Each structure stands twice: as structure tokens, then as C-alpha cells.
């Protein structure tokens, strides 16, 4: 399975966000909110960190 780096990170972020929300929240609404926030934070941190590392790759 040839997976792009970003796609691999998205799969990881989504599945781990769903699991963490199931652990931490009780109601479906709170779980959905927790999942969305955790997923966004994962992706935002990864993209931001990648931008910070960009000068090192040149």
C-alpha cells in the first residue's frame, strides 16, 4: 500500500482521535466534538512542525 506521508498521518490522527474521544467523553455529542478537536490539533501541529522544519530540508 503506497501511502503518501500526509495520508498516513491523517489515518493515524483520525483513528487515534476517535479512540481518545471514546475514552474521555460519555455522550455522543461530546465524543464527536472531542474527536474533531483532537484530529484538528494533530493535523495542525504536524503541518506547523513541517513548516518549521522546511528550511532544514534545503
Amino acid at each position, binding site marked *: *500500500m*503506497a*501511502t503518501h506521508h500526509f495520508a*498516513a498521518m491523517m*489515518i*493515524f490522527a483520525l*483513528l487515534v482521535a*476517535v*479512540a481518545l474521544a*471514546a475514552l474521555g467523553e460519555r455522550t455522543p455529542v461530546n465524543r464527536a466534538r472531542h474527536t474533531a478537536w483532537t484530529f484538528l490539533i494533530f493535523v495542525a501541529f504536524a503541518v506547523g512542525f513541517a513548516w518549521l522544519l522546511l528550511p532544514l530540508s534545503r
Partner: protein
Amino acid sequence: MSDEAPSEVSVHPAVEPGVAPVAETASPVQPAPAEASSQSPATLFALAAWIVPGLGHLLLGRWAKAGTFFACVVGLLICGCAMRGEVLVPGTDGPFGTLGFLADLGCGTLYFLARALEAAGSDLSRAAGDYGTRLIAAAGIVNVLAMLDAFQMASHRNR
């Protein structure tokens, strides 16, 4: 709801002559099946959660959580194996390899299944293989968290 009160009392239809009819009430002492399972030790539910991801929550009657954990753990493991990540064995790459092995072992029986099905072996020459190794470790960690959650829920039910 006072109309429904007499329905809880039943009288034996066949009563011997001279013997007062025996009234039978719904016994509140007998535990329901769900209550009986709650008396099982909490470690049993944690062990079930380790053997099959989500099974501990399933036995506790938490279908949604069981399905969620099963889907997440199996999804991470399948993606990791599909990316040809490495399913670590004990004694590889020093202490970090041991930690990775312990994380992988958290998948329970799926760890052994992944090792058995790892026919082509890992491919760490590409970045995807390295990502796959991390996804497999993440699957084990998520299952360990699910085990602890099942243990905690079972402990609270037994109180």
C-alpha cells in the same frame, strides 16, 4: 401506575383443597444476568479486552465503545501492516526495540496474527514502512488504554 401492581402477584391455579393459595411475588433478590456478570473480577474484563480489542467493553454491555475500540485498533493495525511496517519481536534494536515490542504486544492476539500473516516482511527502506511500524505500535497503545478503561468500568460496577 397502581393498576399494574397486582400483575406482579401470581397465584398458583392448582391448589390443594384446604391449603391456602401461595402468593408468589417477583423476587427482587435474584440478580439479573447483567448484574451477575458484574460480579466477575475486573481483571477478567481487562484480559478479554487484551485478547480481542473491544471484547471487555462488549461483555460489560457497552456496544458502542466496543465497536469503536475494535475498529480503531484493527484499522491502525491493518494500515500499519499494509504499509509494511515492522511487527517487532523481543530483543530487537535495544531498549527502544523492547519498548516497541511491548507496545505491539498490546494488540493481544492480533499481534500474533499480524506476525503470522507478515509473509512479505517489513520494508523499512521506504518511509511508509517506518510509518507502518508507528501505526502498529499506536494500535497496541490504544488497546492498552481500552484495557484500562474496561478494568476501571468493571471495578466501578463491582462496588
